[in-house]
């Protein structure tokens, strides 16, 4: 059914139109409208909010971006991907608001794996949907205004459910693309792993070349049940005029392993929240990220390692490489509750400044409420080590060559966190190209 493009701007009418277009059950529309009400009642972040003080929204307001229009599938959307093809056990591509097919190997479907768009999940697996997909509309982190809008306006999206004991050997890939300027893309992914399940999930975001502003508001919810193992790799590669607001929440239950690796390669402006929550004993998590910034780009990462269960472990490492007049902001919080005995939590933020007009703000924080733990955090900011450069140049490298090599060494450890060699290799090419810069 054609959508009247004049109602493409965010509004209650648009929420209804999206729901109707996707043939949703009425309870789902109600959820959307509840979220819309929360959006309206939540104030826009202000410069006086501590968590937004360092990130100016630059006049961006999501209500000014068309949030839904019918569009043709871009000719070859997968060309926007920087990752290899043909190596996945499941994949899907969403172009703006249009959700493509969710492909998954038959044997996995037979084993009970569900990999589908959100509406199909709502209709065919409503119990699971209600339990796991945006179950609570209240979000109290800095992106509250944006996540409520996402909960109202999402379209397409992906739902992955892996039943108990199912271990998926090959990765799954989701590509979200944006093809038009002046638009807002609202996507949502929910990943649920039951006991001892295992999966590697790659989420990639990319744009066609843009001439003017666009925004992305994305949400990801991850649940890893007892003993499950999830590797989630997020590649943010939006165009240079996009403002990207991303909220990732992961819950790792007893003895689970949840590894989140984030590559922020694109966008003009970004606020990325990452919440790791560990309520039961024995869970372990590595949360690593690499942010490459140049021009006047500005990305603000807000991370949280929240330990409630005893004997839990988390290790967070975020590295940034900045050039030109770029700016990186990092707010990290390790929150260890009274019950989290014998837990260990580590956090490190390193920034490499490659120009004298770049700026890094690093605020690694800790709130520790019990004593039988070991928590450390650290931050470094600086340029490439002079001795390292000198050594390389004395071995025959030009200054540019020496710098490039040093930067490669700096970003490599984050690439090493990707547990699939093919994906790692493709990422490496894109990352090195971007990190070393055009000189």
């Amino acid at each position, binding site marked *: 059914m054609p959508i009247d493009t004049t109602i493409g701007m965010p509004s209650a009418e648009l929420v209804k139109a999206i729901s109707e277009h996707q043939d949703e059950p009425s309870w789902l529309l109600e959820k959307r409208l509840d979220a819309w009400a929360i959006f309206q009642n939540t104030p826009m972040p202000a410069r006086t909010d501590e968590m937004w003080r360092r990130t100016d929204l630059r006049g961006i307001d999501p209500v000014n971006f068309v949030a839904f229009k019918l569009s043709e599938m871009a000719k070859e959307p997968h060309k926007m991907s920087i990752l290899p093809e043909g190596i996945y056990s499941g994949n899907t591509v969403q172009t703006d608001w249009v959700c493509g097919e969710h492909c998954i190997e038959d044997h996995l479907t037979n084993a009970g794996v569900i990999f589908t768009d959100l509406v199909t999940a709502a209709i065919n697996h409503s119990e699971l949907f209600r339990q796991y997909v945006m179950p609570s509309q209240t979000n109290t982190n800095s992106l509250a205004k944006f996540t409520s809008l996402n909960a109202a306006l999402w379209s397409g999206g992906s739902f992955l459910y892996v039943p108990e004991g199912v271990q998926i050997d090959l990765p799954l890939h989701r590509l979200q693309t944006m093809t038009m300027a002046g638009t807002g893309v609202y996507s949502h992914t929910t990943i649920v792993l039951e006991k001892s399940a295992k999966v590697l999930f790659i989420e990639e975001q990319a744009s066609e070349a843009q001439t003017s502003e666009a925004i992305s508001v994305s949400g990801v919810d991850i649940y890893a049940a007892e003993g499950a193992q999830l590797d989630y790799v997020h590649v943010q590669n939006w165009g240079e005029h996009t403002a990207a607001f991303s909220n990732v929440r992961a819950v790792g239950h007893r003895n689970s392993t949840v590894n989140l690796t984030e590559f922020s390669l694109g966008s003009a402006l970004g606020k990325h929240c990452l919440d790791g929550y560990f309520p039961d004993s024995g869970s372990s998590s590595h949360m690593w990220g690499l942010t490459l910034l140049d021009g006047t780009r500005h990305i603000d990462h807000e991370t949280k390692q929240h330990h409630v269960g005893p004997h839990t472990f988390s290790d967070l490492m975020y590295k940034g490489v900045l050039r030109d007049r770029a700016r990186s902001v990092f707010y990290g919080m390790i929150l260890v509750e009274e019950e989290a005995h014998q837990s260990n939590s580590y956090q490190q933020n390193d920034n490499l400044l490659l120009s*004298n007009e*770049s700026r890094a*703000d*690093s605020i690694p924080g800790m709130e520790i409420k019990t*004593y039988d733990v070991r928590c*450390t955090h*650290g*931050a470094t900011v600086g340029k490439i080590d002079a001795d390292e450069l000198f050594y390389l140049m004395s071995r025959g490298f030009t200054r540019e060559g020496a710098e490039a090599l040093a930067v490669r060494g700096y970003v490599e450890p984050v690439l090493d966190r990707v547990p699939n060699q093919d994906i790692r290799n493709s990422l490496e090419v894109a990352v090195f190209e971007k990190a070393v810069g055009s000189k």
Partner: protein
Amino acid sequence: MSTEAIQPPTTSIEFDYKHGFHDKEKAAITTDPGLSEKIVRQISALKNEPEWMLELRLQGLQAFESRPMPDWGADLSEIKFDDIRYYVKATDRGAEDNWDDVPEYIKNTFDRLGIPEAEKKFLAGVGAQYDSEVVYHSIQDQMAEQGVIYLDMDGGLREHEDLVKKFFAKMIPVNDNKFAALNTAVWSGGSFVYVPPGVKVDLPLQAYFRINAEAAGQFERTLIIADEGADVHYIEGCTAPVYARDSLHSAVVEIIAMPNSHVRYTTIQNWSNNVYNLVTKRAFAHEGASVEWIDGNIGSKVTMKYPAIHLLGEGARGEVLSIAYANSGQHQDAGAKIVHAAPNTSSTITSKSIGNGDGRSSYRGLLKVDRGATDAKSFVRCDAMLLTPESRTDTYPYIEIEEEDAQIGHEATVSKIGDDEIFYLMSRGLSEEKATSVIVTGFFEEFIKELPMEYSVEMNRLIELEMEGSIG
């Protein structure tokens, strides 16, 4: 920047053999509770201040009244601003208080630390005088020889108005924060120190021996000026607990270190556990100068204090070495702020904090490198040790770097005492309590070794005391 030669100081303190010593000022009064323009004017009039100081006080009052309470840091909601007397006459200080009213734990600590009788009453706030006149006078004689000015702040304003006017409220402007504004409005007491060019003050200036009860007040204001090449060490406070009936202490300390000078400011504060200790301290370090804040925070109900250094001249250096010990019912929210605003500057911040009982210790700091402050080097280390399951610690470091040519590192750790450490010491015959206290002393070692000898001895004994009865 340099100043003209200053005449040798004349003391503003008269010494009356029979009654100890007192300030030569007009009959003082104690103001009514609460704060108002009338009271601020009263205070200024009592001190016979110049118009510009009254003006500053009134600006401070206005800023205090219009600023909101901070929405971060410790809980200050129980401070009753309207019940506080903002200016207390010296002789009133002992009059209403009775030795019997002094809490037992304070008296016990005095005994255990071997504090002499005379000193006890002073520290307990039930004695208005302190009989240290001999020590005081010998200090004054030495200062006079070197041309050093060392007076209480009121005296400094009276006798060296131009010098005070040049620097007062320049490091910490009137409107810097709510409590600095309050201090600007009602300040009284504190020290004024001026060290002439090239002069090295041999012995540490210890505020403790100079002040009388009035100056040991709630709203001390200290200004230290180290002229080019000067070198001075100033010590404030003492390890013994100081019992204060008034529960709001809001001091301001400003330091200016001219080129190539060196200032070390050591504080050991052990306020009784009803006190809110909210202090603003900031130093400016010019070319080649170095400033150190050695800050020990024990006691008080709440402490909020972040000694700051602005490195404004090339080659300037700054160091903050701070410890905080939060026992049950206490919240130490302390830290450091260093700004690199010139090339070739370096700094270190070392913060060590301990939480015992259900105490809470927080580190809050800022490390900022401005654009153009090339070749900045800074290293920050915060370590926290929690001794009990109920204690807690927080770390909030803010790192803002706008210059690529900087080398910045920050590290923080939180842990408890290792079981193996305790077992080892116990296997050597120490009780668990003693073993813990030895480890705690070791944890604070870096700080303790920076104190003058007699303080470090007292410090060690104090830690032992604090640890007693805390293992259970």
